[in-house]
């Protein structure tokens, strides 16, 4: 179970990294509004999908992002610190000119990359541990039953 959570976190962070990269491209080349960027590139992440839905229902982007993250990021692999990072990203997303937004995306790309690196290391280290624990527990249970 714990091992699965670690794998999910890696997947979610990878997906968010891909989203930031797509957002950067859209901002640079098509100046697409944030609402449409989320709707176009956010299908793989539950919180982005919810944010897009909230926007379609008429919420302001800030409100849509906040409620999307609150409802769709918890329990999907992101930890508490990741969620704070997602809120921070959303609060400034779209709030400046093109150069400002490209810098904003680059900064968060780096921050998420660091987290992804840690998540991968944690996954490799701990998932082996959890697997071993599982094997030993199984063996112990078998011995006890015998």
């Amino acid at each position: 179970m714990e091992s699965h959570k670690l794998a999910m976190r890696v997947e979610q962070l990878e997906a968010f990294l891909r989203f930031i990269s797509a957002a950067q491209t859209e901002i640079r080349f098509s100046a697409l509004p944030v609402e449409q960027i989320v709707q176009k590139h956010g299908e793989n992440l539950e919180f982005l999908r919810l944010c897009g839905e909230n926007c379609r229902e008429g919420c302001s982007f800030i409100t849509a992002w906040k409620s999307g993250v609150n409802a769709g990021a918890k329990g999907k692999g992101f930890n508490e610190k990741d969620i704070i990072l997602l809120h921070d990203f959303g609060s400034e997303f779209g709030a400046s000119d093109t150069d400002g937004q490209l810098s904003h995306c680059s900064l968060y790309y780096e921050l998420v990359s660091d987290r992804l690196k840690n998540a991968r290391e944690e996954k490799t280290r701990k998932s082996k541990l959890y697997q071993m624990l599982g094997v030993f527990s199984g063996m112990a249970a078998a011995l006890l039953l015998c």
Partner: protein
Amino acid sequence: MDNYSDPRFDSAAKAVCERIGKYFKLLPRDIKNQTQELRLRVNKPVSICCTGGIYFLNYSGRLVCYPDDDTMIANKGDVEECFRNICSYSIYSHQNEIKNGFITLSGGHRVGISGTAVFHNGEITGMRDISSINIRIAREITGSATELFHALNNDISGGLLLAGAPASGKTTILRDIARQLSNGTCGDMKKVAVIDERGELAGTYMGVPQNDLGVCSDVLDGYPKAEGIMQAIRSLSPEFIICDELGGSDEVSAVKQGLNAGVSMISSIHAGSIEELMMRKQAVSLLKTGAFGCVAMLNGHAEPGKITGIYKAGDLLAKTDRGTDSNLCGNPCGIYGVA
């Protein structure tokens, strides 16, 4: 429809921050109907401009003629929230508009913004510290150009220049002219190209015009007028080209090209009176192109859409050349009289 809803007002008021917007929402429909502008200024009373004058919003949700202790004050946060709302929380996608000082909302409502200019290499590249916001409500009044068509015997193929002060209804009439020409309300259906540089005429949102410009209208959204005119001539074979607020020298030469291509031009220009119009160099240059057979003068913001006189361009130019600007052709309302 209840006593509080006016779709045009409500769609424009959506741009206002939540704290103030909820009061706008509760204004009675007859007030909403008359409203021309919603204005927010940092640390100043929230006001609305109606046909009858300027009113201030108070915390009871009522409008008063003079600000008092109960008048609602817009703070910096309100204006900033409003600004981000107007930009759909995507300031980078409105950079050019911000540089020019206005943003067009879905529905064609134009939002004027003021703040501190940001310079780069001697050119204005943006704006910071937004200090005031003016939301102009775009009205779509079906039939607002009918009087004009009647006065001109349904023939505006010689070109028409609408002149009027700000908020006199120029854009509303242009929109209805486009609709009537392309729907064939006043004769055969015409192919109309609308050059909508500021997005006010069609109010295009995500490629879909929000205002009805008729069945045979093509909209060139966001094109600078001169380039839009050339593009329309090259690719759309229009019979009429309609655009708002002409004036630049490149636009004058584009109008000439349009004339050579056999297209009728319909446009608007800012001018408080016919005398003021003829004192403006760019207006005279436009009339001299021969693309505008007539000039229709609008009354002003007190009676939006009301035409005070229609003049033949040739006569106006002749009077200007002779250096006299009074008593045009013996009739203060022009050749055609008041429409």
